[in-house]
């Protein structure tokens, strides 16, 4: 049975369609290890920036009905040390690694790309969509069709790895943004990043719970938003989609596949179901396939495309 979850993503064969997304557990190579031990098929690094960042002061995470708010603030050891973690992981494993990078200018994205070219990473992911550094950097790049096009295009020209563009859900017209990435040569799309952002209040101390006040939403409550955006995008582009946002059970993963995703990220669910969540969802997908008579992931049908 295990065999039937084998699939391909951008030319790499993977044992499970489940992806550890950027910023979840994967700060160090040991974070990748625990995730693949527990069934992930691809792992993603924390979004790496040119310089190390300590991120926002705490609280940086808060729970509410249906999910989490987080405002990590892109804490990461910087591109150099971050790639050391990836290389150390790749010494002992051939599980594909996505190097996620974040910058605010094309120039820095190009510098980051060169670093990644020289690493053992398998894919390059452009995080154009972090909602938690608004104060510092303003509206995410991924809200602008032109910025997405410009950066993706420039990076594609020098990247030796397949490029994945990570999109924000907080836009009016996801299709135009997705098409910008596609026409700039992006090899795949990753969606969605966190939603909102939102805020929670401590009513006794009369303070925002997050020190940064606002944080992006993830977890079960963002699933319908993710499904909708993935489905719209799938209907409009021809590059594969790494779908994520609230996937917690096998049923959610199947929904993402039907909406158009090729592989599926599982982030916040690590909290709800433990680090074993990847193996659990793998089994649930296999059960679903057995019950409904699908022999491989490819046989699971997609929704009829939206008419545009």
């Amino acid at each position, binding site marked *: 049975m295990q065999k039937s979850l084998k699939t391909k993503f951008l030319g790499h064969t993977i044992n499970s369609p489940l992806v550890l997304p950027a910023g979840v557990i994967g700060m160090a190579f040991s974070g990748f290890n625990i995730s693949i031990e527990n069934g992930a098929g691809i792992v993603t690094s924390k979004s790496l920036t040119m310089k190390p960042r*300590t991120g926002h002061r*705490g609280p940086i995470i808060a*729970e509410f009905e249906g999910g989490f708010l987080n405002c990590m603030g892109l804490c990461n050891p910087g591109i150099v040390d971050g790639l050391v973690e990836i290389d150390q992981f790749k010494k002992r494993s051939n599980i594909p690694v996505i190097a996620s990078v974040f910058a605010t200018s094309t120039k820095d994205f190009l510098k980051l790309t060169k670093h990644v070219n020289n690493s053992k990473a398998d894919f390059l992911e452009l995080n154009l969509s972090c909602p938690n550094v608004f104060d510092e950097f303003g509206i995410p790049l991924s809200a602008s069709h032109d910025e997405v096009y410009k950066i993706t295009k420039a990076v594609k020209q020098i990247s030796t790895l397949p490029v994945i563009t990570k999109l924000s859900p907080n836009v009016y017209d996801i299709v135009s943004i997705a098409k910008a990435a596609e026409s700039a040569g992006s090899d795949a799309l990753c969606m969605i990043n966190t939603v909102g952002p939102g805020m929670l209040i401590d009513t*006794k101390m009369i303070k925002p719970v997050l*020190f940064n006040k606002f944080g992006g939403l993830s977890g079960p409550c963002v699933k319908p938003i993710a499904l909708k955006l993935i489905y719209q995008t799938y209907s409009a582009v021809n590059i594969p989609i790494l779908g994520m946002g609230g996937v917690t059970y096998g049923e959610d993963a199947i929904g993402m596949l039907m909406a158009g995703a090729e592989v599926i990220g599982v982030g916040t669910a690590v909290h709800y179901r433990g680090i074993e969540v990847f193996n659990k969802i793998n089994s649930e997908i296999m059960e679903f396939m057995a019950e409904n008579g699908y022999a491989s992931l490819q046989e699971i049908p997609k929704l009829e495309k939206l008419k545009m």
Partner: protein
Amino acid sequence: MEKRITLKIAKIVDETRDIKTFTFNHSLGAKPGQFIMLTDFEGGEKPFSISDCSKNEFSITVKRIGDFTTRLFQKCVGDYVSIRGAYGSSFFVSNKKVLLVGGGYAVPTFNFLAKVLLETGADITLINGACTRAEHVFDNSFKNLNINVINTTDDGTLGEAGTAVEIAQKIIAQGKFDFVYASGPELMMKALQNVIGDLEYEFLFERYMKCAVGICGSCTMDPSGIRLCVEGPVLSKRKVEKLTEFGKYHRDASGKRIKF
């Protein structure tokens, strides 16, 4: 994530010039070794081990060390702080002859542990170590418990002169113990590991923590990826032996490796 709760500080006790115990009226339901995350919403949310926990009360014992703890030291009884937890793994509850080796602000968690072990009928020896008399804590609390206490200070200003590990080595050599617990500076625990022989043990580790719910990856331990906030902070011998970073490096808030 255990629901966040905002509580008034019910009691503050000065342990030393730089160490205070804060007590809260709240039924936390924690186990020895576990910790809470605490914030005042003024910047920073930090992990603290539970130094006492009864049905309706719990305490943490804090060393003033930087911005956050300095601000905490300025709070008064009746001021609000907000906590979440208890989080993490807890100490194995042995009913045999056990040795507790602690150093500095990390000793008070053994107050909570000792109380629980006593209920199972364990025979407890505690080495309560500090650099110097002025940093030695919880003397009185331990006196009230039915345990053997060996106080040590590096400079001999209180109890025996020498490190906690030196004392531990001596009494372990006498072959009296079934199980060893340690909580203190990582290099102390590393030294202890070298003299502990074949004894079973559990160590309480500290790493930079942000989410405390196993999601952000700040606290994974090389190479297996044990998340210290979920699978730790208490690790068994079997797990400790596999750590490649133990006593060598830890990571800061950015994830950068910092050598000890």
